[in-house]
Every structure is written in C-alpha cells, then in structure tokens.
C-alpha cells in the first residue's frame, strides 16, 4: 500500500515553513480561492463538491454536498469548522491545523463563497493550544493580505473568521453540543428536532458544521474538479483520507491513503507491522466509539461501507492495534472510563449507565467480579442501546452513550472467555 498525497502535499514538500502564508502562496496557495471568487459561481462550486462524492471526515460520513444543499436561506448564515478532535486514537486534524492552516482557510473561503456565508468560526479543542496558535497566526496573515475581511481578492465577498478555543469536553465534537458551546452555554447536545444545524444551528440560524479534514480537501477538489476526486478511492469512499494509526505498532502516525485497501495491508506496509512481531488480538477500526475487530479480521477493506457491513464504523479514521498480550478488559475499561468522564449528564441511561459499566469492569479487572456481572453488564448496556445491535439504537439524545457500549459488545461477542476467566467461580467466605 502506498500513500496518495493531496492534503498533506504542501506540508511534506515544505516542512520548514508550511504553516506560513509566504510558503503556502509560493506553492500556488490561495490561487484556487481567488479564481473561484472572481470567475466561478456558488452553484458551480456546490456541483463540484457533489460530484466529488466526498463524505464528512468527522466520523458520521455524511455526504458533504448533500449537507451543503440543505442550508436554508437566511440573511445570517454561519460556517463552523469542527476542530474539536477528541476521539481517542485520532490525531489527524491536529497535523492539518498545525502544519497547513492556510489550506483550511482557503477551504473556508471557497465554502463560504459557495454558501454565501460571511462569518466562520473555527472551534478548536482547548488542549490543542499549539495548533490553535498556528491557525490564529494564519488567520492574521490572511487578513493582512486582504484574503479575509472586506472585498476579498477584490470581489464583492466579505468574510470574517474567528478562532474559538474549547475547554476540554469531548461531547462538543457532537455538532449541536458544539453550537451550544460556541453560544457560551454548557456543551450539551440539543434535542432533535430541529434535525439539521443547516436549518437551525448557531443562534438558531442556518449553519454548516464541517470537519477540518473535509474543508481542507475543498481547495484540491475545486482546483482539480469533483470528477477527478471521485476517481480516487472506491465508490462510496472517494478521495483520500488521513488515517491515524496507533497502539502496538512499529510506525505509528498519520497516513494519507485512498480508501479501499485492507487493514492488514495498511498495518504491514505503512505501519511497519506489529511491535516485536506479535500477533494482533483485536483492533479498533475507527476511534474509541467503534466496535472492535478481531485479529483474524484484518482482511476487511478500509472503506466506510465495508466497515459498516462488518458491524463497526470507519468513524474518525483512527486505527488502534492491540497485540496478543493486551489485557482487553483493561482496554475496554479505559474506553468506558473515557465515555463516563465525557458524558454530559443530560440523559440518565448514559450518565448512570456509563458509570455503572465502569464500576463493574473495574470489579472484574481487579479479580472481584461476580458470576452475575456479565449479565448485569449486558443489561446496563441494553438500557443505553436496546438490542445491542449495530448501528446502535439509542435511549439517549446523542450517540455518546451507545459508544460506551461498543467495547462491551465487542468483548462479549468475541472475547467472552477472557472476561469469564477473570471472574472467580467460587467465593471463599
């Protein structure tokens, strides 16, 4: 497997200053945006995005062109870039923010041109202080050049960008929670309906919420055409995608590839294989929310649909490898603890359930498990996500609760023995 370099091209060829505007412009940066504003039309841009068939890179994989098409008419409309990257295992937006912020800004300009938006926000998670500084510096540089502000590139278009820092809440990656947070409220997901921020979003105005990687892909798509982008990858998963590879792997890192190869190939070639030549016991194909695959399922293809057909999700593109020596109960506990900590507390099944799962797993991991614990675990999980099926049913406003159920169903379906082994069968009094 080889990398296909679109998004990471500039940062690779100019490692010493890829985040600065001079370097970006020397490599044809902002040329596409300028051409677009002076010679293109909003409808043409939307057509290109639609024909590229790009799907959102934040996790849900929603077709970007369709999302843009939903945007309701209103005098005030907003674009919000979701840079609240917090899904355990994921660090791909971090590299785009830190190493090539101008590509994102150019994507924002083109997006706002197409959607007739005059104000954009980049919501960056608070822990990404350094990436946020880089983006802020880039925004200032763009203002100084007249690429942001009034009458951009001498066109009629006005655009302001505000860089907004979050403050440590995973849940703000959920788009309606992010909007609440941006409005200066607690980051609690909104009750649906209204279903789409594109109709009622920030300040209840039509709002596009897009991931960093999605919008960073826009300049390439517009420069080369949606059809060209559509030729990359496979049907349903077009273009390139940055996968974050971590865990027990020889060469962890971000890899930009066309979707379609298998996880095994990815790990063996780009990832350099599992550390100490161990075998894979299990792996996470798309971030901590995704159900796990077993070590004997490495031939599954890395596409949104193939992973979904195998009852998991490609999610944020975070692949975490766990070798044969991994204590999977501890691994599951780590993931559940994450969701228990990050639950916003609105919905009882999630708020109480995630904490209960954490306590029961802790009991089992420390050898104090009870024989009734497995059924109890499944019962608690069933209250959060009835039927324990995939895609998950929900008793909660957002999918955070069901995400905590994923590692438990993985454990119970594929590694039940490992859990049972930890539970003492006889208790000495």
């Amino acid at each position: 497997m080889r990398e296909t370099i679109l998004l990471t091209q500039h940062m690779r060829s100019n490692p010493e200053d890829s985040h600065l505007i001079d370097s970006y412009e020397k490599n044809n940066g902002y040329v596409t945006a300028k051409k677009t504003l002076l010679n293109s039309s909003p409808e043409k841009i939307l057509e290109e995005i639609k024909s590229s068939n790009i799907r959102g890179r934040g996790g849900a994989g929603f077709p970007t062109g369709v999302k843009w098409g939903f945007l309701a008419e209103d005098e005030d409309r907003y674009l919000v870039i979701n840079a609240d990257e917090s899904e355990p295992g994921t660090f791909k937006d971090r590299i785009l923010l830190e190493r090539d912020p101008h590509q994102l800004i150019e994507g924002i300009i083109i997006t706002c041109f197409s959607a007739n938006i005059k104000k954009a926000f980049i919501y960056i998670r608070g822990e990404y202080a350094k990436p946020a500084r880089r983006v802020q510096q880039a925004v200032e540089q763009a203002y100084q050049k007249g690429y942001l502000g009034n009458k951009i590139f001498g066109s009629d278009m006005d655009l302001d960008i505000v860089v907004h820092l979050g403050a440590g809440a995973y849940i703000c990656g959920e788009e309606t929670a992010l909007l609440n947070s941006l409005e200066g409220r607690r980051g609690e997901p909104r009750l649906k309906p209204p279903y789409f921020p594109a109709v009622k979003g920030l300040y209840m105005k039509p709002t596009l919420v897009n991931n960093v990687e999605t919008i960073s892909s826009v300049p390439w798509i517009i420069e080369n055409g949606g059809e060209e982008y559509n030729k990359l990858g496979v049907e349903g998963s077009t273009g390139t995608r940055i996968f974050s590879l971590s865990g027990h792997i020889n060469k962890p890192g971000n890899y930009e590839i066309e979707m379609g190869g298998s996880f095994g190939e990815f790990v063996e070639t780009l990832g350099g294989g599992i550390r100490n030549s161990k075998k894979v016991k299990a792996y996470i194909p798309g971030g901590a929310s995704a159900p796990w695959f077993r070590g004997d399922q490495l031939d599954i293809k890395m596409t949104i649909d193939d992973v979904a057909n195998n009852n998991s999700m490609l999610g944020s593109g975070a692949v975490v490898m766990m070798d044969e020596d991994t204590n999977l109960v501890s691994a599951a506990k780590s993931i559940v603890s994450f969701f228990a900590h990050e639950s916003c507390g609105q919905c009882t099944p999630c708020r109480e359930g995630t904490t209960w799962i954490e306590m029961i797993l802790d009991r089992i991991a420390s050898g104090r498990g009870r024989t009734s614990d497995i059924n109890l675990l499944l019962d608690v999980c069933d209250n959060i996500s009835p039927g324990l099926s995939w895609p998950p049913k929900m008793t909660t406003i957002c999918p955070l609760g069901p995400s905590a159920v994923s590692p438990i169903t993985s454990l119970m379906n594929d590694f039940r023995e490992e859990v049972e082994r930890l539970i003492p069968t006889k208790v000495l009094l």
Partner: protein
Amino acid sequence: MSWDKTLLKQAGEIIELYPQKRSALGPLLHLAQSKDGYISDDSISVISELLGITEVQVKSVSTFYSMYKQEPTGKYLISVCKSISCEINNSTEVIDKVQEFTGLNNNETDEDGLFSFEAVECIGACGGAPAMQVNYETVEGINAENVFSLCSWLKESAPEVIVADEMQENFGGIKSFDWAIQDNTGATSTAPGFQTLKTSKVKK
C-alpha cells in the same frame, strides 16, 4: 470589578468578535484562568457583568468544562493521558511516576503551588503514546524515566514559558508525526497559551 484595565480591554476585544455577547463566555473564562490559575468568584462576577448574564449562568458553564479549574492550580499543570492508545502503552507507569515525584493524587495541587496533577482523557497524541501535557503544551513518547527528568527540570529551572518543542527535544521520544520547524511559543499559565485577542478583524 477587580480586573485591571488591560484585562478589561482584552475582554472587550474578545466580546466584539461575536454576533452575540454570550459567545465570549468561554474565551473570557480562559482569560480568568490565565489571570488567577482558576475561576475565582471575583472573575465570575466580572464576567457576568460584562456579558449581562447571571453569575449562576457563568458558574454553570465554568463547571461543565474540565479545563476551567474551580480551585487554584499550581504553576505547572501536569496532565498525563490515560485513554486507550496511551493505556495500552503503559501510561499507568508514567502516572505512577508523576504521582511519586509530586506526591499528588489525581486533581490535586501541592502546598507550594508548584505542581498540579491530573490523569486526563485523550489529548490527540496517540501516535506518540504515552503522552502528556504541561500547561497544555504536549510532550510525546514519554516513559517512567524521562517523565521523572522532566518533572525535575520543571522544579529546578522553573521556566516561565512552557514550550512544547523544548520539552519534546529534551525529554520526549516517539512523536505522532514530524513536528517540523522548531517553535518557541508556549504557555505562561495554566490556561492554554493561545492569545485570544487579535483573532479576527485585524483593522485595515
């Protein structure tokens, strides 16, 4: 109101960035954190007045997010990641070592006001697991040994600005990706080192 003129001016510039005042609440809380090392009652009343919302509304937001501290923090906030990629790469050893060095349990600050310690959820440095942050500046590829050296260095040299690249070069190991050019910007408090002003609207 006991925020000084400079701080109030900064606050005013932040508020101006947003279509609705209340949106500035998050950034203003970061500002308060950078001033006092926590969200003081005084800051809460200043912010409520600036934004025209009640103190309870400010407090309810400030307690929702984990980066706004409700108690004074030390000069250095050490946050070690314990999420999945770090967990399976022995982050517990790192956590144990930091606790041993500082004598602190999770979410505690020492009496000298030098260190605060917390075991945190994913900080987006999974390729460099285990990873940690000091005042939200990231160090990747740490282990029980080099984290001990890092803590000793903080204690002995007491740097005023925490710079990620400097820590990474002296104490870090494997990284999530090539960081490329050296960067000397950093954090000067337990609020993220991000200048909330001048974000937008550079005047013509």
